[in-house]
């Protein structure tokens, strides 16, 4: 009995002890820790996987792939690089048409078979760029050395053999796999083509621009004085000789271009595909010969970097699926930079007023909440606002006042890079305001008081002490804003981004920077190439490359901003003690 009464409490003590010091998992917080860590790890894996996918595809795209020639069971041949392969379920009617042993094999595999996507090219001959070839239709495969992939200005690539190259009426001697001396002849043809383009787009463009300028000048006078005013008549008469001179110049240039084109037409190439069909064209229409099966590693790398060069520095061709993205890089960069230049002073001044000058009361609290909520408004809404307010209202008024002579075609009264930058600035300004306010409130009261006690005014204190101290924080806000702005696409589609911009927003014509122009953007480019083009399969690699480029561009811009910020940080917040 006594033992029982003694043991009972000691049991209770033991139990209590076990509960308090034992391994009660939920009390120690370990599961929560694991869950949080797991969530973090999952997030990191997802992001890393995404980046890896984009980069792997992006980096590999321009590397020349071997050209495979396939002989099919029906005796025909097709050739081209293999894009990818996959398992597929053979449709029943097709299965029925196959020879019984093949049917049995497929049945053994549960109705599945393998197929490969071949980039057969030669769209002008067959009306398709790609073809799926099931493995059971393939009788034989080889990689003939003389098969060449030729990138062309039109119709996409051609896969086949070079039959003959004729320079100025004289055929080149055969070579292996390409005719001897083709390189030099090709380069000459391409140079000539570049020259034609320079004349037609550059020199003739300048003449057109000048003629247009004169016409607009007269029109401006007409609008001011009426069409029959003496000054208008005088201006018209005064413009005559200049116009005549420009027209002569135009004719000379056009004649030169025509002569070059005729010359260009005399250097031709005849190609034959594996099926034996032939096709002749001007040599200058081919941008690049890739004898993929006959390339050393060095040669392959040469093609690889040459393609990169074209991609980064050239204008797009073929509905953006070929050529380069230079205008889009440029547009993205300029637009983002302009956005930052607008959003930085606007956001910082707003935050300064809210935090340092406004009386902290209900109104300021409401403003603050509104600003925070602005960050949550869907971006397309900003696009609608941008096109309605900036383009139509503000831009329309600007056109009425300053560009009346160009109406009805709008100058500022439509989407353009300026309106796009302003719209994005509006979209990102909450981020900057919030970050700046936070940075300002983090400046210790003691240094502010120190400054005031020295006889500095409030503005001097802000200028000399508070702003420099807050600058790193403000920069962080700008970096966030930049990252968001550079990646935004939806609102831009309404306020100035186009699929193909005829001109860059910067060029050699006065005033050199043309803020009213529409522009190209990498984000929109991705959407357009990947999902809007005639041939989404051809655009697919470009999607990855362009995505990689966009990520890279944002990364570089952020890196630059971060470097600047850290410099400032070191300068203004040195080590304590």
């Amino acid at each position, binding site marked *: 009995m006594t033992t029982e009464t003694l043991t009972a409490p000691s049991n209770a003590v033991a139990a209590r002890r076990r509960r308090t010091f034992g391994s009660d998992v939920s009390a120690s917080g370990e599961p929560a820790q694991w869950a949080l860590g797991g969530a973090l790890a999952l997030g990191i894996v997802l992001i890393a996987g995404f980046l890896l996918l984009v980069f792997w595809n992006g980096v590999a795209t321009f590397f020349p792939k071997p050209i495979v020639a396939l002989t099919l069971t029906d005796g025909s041949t097709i050739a081209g690089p293999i894009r990818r392969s996959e398992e597929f379920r053979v449709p029943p009617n097709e299965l029925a048409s196959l020879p019984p042993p093949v049917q049995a094999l497929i049945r053994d595999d549960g109705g599945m078979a393998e197929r490969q996507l071949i980039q057969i090219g030669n769209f002008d001959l067959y009306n398709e760029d790609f073809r799926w070839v099931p493995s059971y239709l393939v009788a034989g495969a080889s990689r003939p050395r003389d098969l060449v992939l030729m990138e062309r200005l039109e119709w996409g690539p051609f896969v086949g053999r070079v039959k003959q190259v004729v320079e100025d009426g004289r055929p080149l001697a055969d070579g292996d796999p390409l005719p001897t001396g083709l390189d030099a002849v090709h380069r000459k043809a391409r140079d000539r083509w570049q020259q034609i383009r320079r004349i037609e787009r550059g020199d003739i463009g300048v003449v057109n621009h000048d003629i247009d300028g004169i016409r607009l000048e007269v029109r401006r006078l007409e609008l001011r004085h009426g069409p029959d005013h003496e000054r208008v008549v005088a201006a018209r008469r005064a413009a005559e000789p200049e116009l005549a001179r420009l027209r002569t110049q135009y004719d000379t240039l056009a004649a030169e271009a025509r002569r070059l084109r005729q010359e260009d037409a005399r250097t031709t190439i005849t190609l034959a595909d594996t099926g034996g069909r032939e096709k002749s064209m001007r040599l200058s229409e081919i941008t690049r010969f890739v004898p993929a099966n006959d390339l050393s590693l060095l040669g392959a790398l040469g093609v690889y970097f040459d393609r990169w060069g074209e991609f980064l520095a050239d204008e797009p061709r073929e509905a953006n699926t070929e050529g380069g993205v230079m205008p889009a890089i440029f547009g993205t960069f300029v637009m983002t930079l302009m956005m930052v230049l607008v959003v930085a002073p606007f956001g910082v001044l707003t935050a300064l007023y809210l935090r340092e000058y406004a009386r902290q009361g209900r109104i300021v609290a409401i403003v603050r909440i509104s600003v925070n909520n602005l960050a949550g408004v869907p971006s397309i809404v900003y696009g609608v606002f941008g096109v309605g307010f900036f383009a139509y209202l503000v831009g329309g008024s600007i056109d009425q006042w300053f560009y009346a002579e160009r109406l009805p075609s709008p100058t500022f009264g439509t989407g353009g890079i300026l309106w796009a930058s302003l719209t994005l600035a509006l979209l990102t300004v909450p981020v900057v305001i919030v970050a700046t306010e936070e940075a300002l409130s983090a400046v210790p009261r003691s240094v502010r008081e120190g400054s005031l*006690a*020295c006889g500095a005014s409030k503005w001097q204190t802000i200028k000399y002490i508070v702003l420099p101290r807050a600058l790193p924080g403000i920069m962080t806000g700008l970096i966030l804003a930049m990252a968001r702005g550079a990646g935004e696409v939806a609102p831009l589609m309404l306020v100035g981004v186009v699929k193909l911009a005829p001109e860059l927003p910067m060029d050699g014509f006065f005033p050199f920077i043309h803020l009213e122009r529409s522009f190209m953007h990498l984000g929109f480019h991705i959407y357009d190439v990947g999902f809007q083009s005639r041939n989404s399969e051809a655009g697919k690699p470009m999607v990855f490359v362009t995505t990689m480029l966009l990520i890279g561009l944002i990364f570089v811009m952020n890196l630059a901003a971060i470097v600047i910020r850290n410099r400032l940080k070191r300068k203004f917040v040195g080590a304590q003690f």
Partner: protein
Amino acid sequence: MNAPTFGPTSYHPTKGERTSLEIKDFNLWYGAAQALFDVAMDVQVGMVTALIGPSGCGKSTLLRSMNRMNDLIDNLRINGAIRLEGDDIYGPAIDVIGLRKRMGMVFQKPNPFPMSIAENVVYPLRVDGVTDRALLEQTVERSLKAAALWDEVKGRLKENALGLSGGQQQRLCIARAVAGDPEVLLMDEPCSALDPIATAKIEELIDELRGNYTIIIVTHNMQQAARVSQNTAFMYLGRLIEYGDTKRMFTNPIEARTQDYITGRFG
């Protein structure tokens, strides 16, 4: 014996040449809470006046009322008057920025600005728009010498002030406070964040600055008050209890509460 001129306190400071700061029936409220009650004292020119008293008794509040640092606080209300050489600090005609230029202030925690040592020192001149290089350089040297910091930093005036040690930072703040050549130096527990060696240096410095400046120093440390000041004011619960010659107050205080405080019975 000096009879109290006003207020209900025991009042017999050692008189200097004249009165620098004259505080008259000064009351102060933070919102509804009154922090100062009918404070009245004459701060003597060229002397060091110590403000002592337990935590929260209103020493900082009184000090910050003298250069209107309290203006930054919302819902602050005062009545009574403080005069600097006869100018009413809270009068309608006063220019607060000009007033602050006549008074240097040193804070409890060193608060150097995130800029170079030299820029820190000449900050009061910079905000005055002084650009004369010779004058700026001369001010840097004079002020740093006055703050007994010159020998330690003369080789690295262009370096960031935040790289200095705590004691050096505080002396830099003193240099900054005297750079604008003020009449009065206000110091709010300038040594509380410093080690004993740095504290000794600052005390020595205060002793040297005496005469050129009228110094008012808030301190928690009774020995410090005894060492550096000529007059001491004892505050308690927002009231000035006793104001008098330091030596006499520490040996022979009149008020019982002063006696209790300096003998360590509370505080």
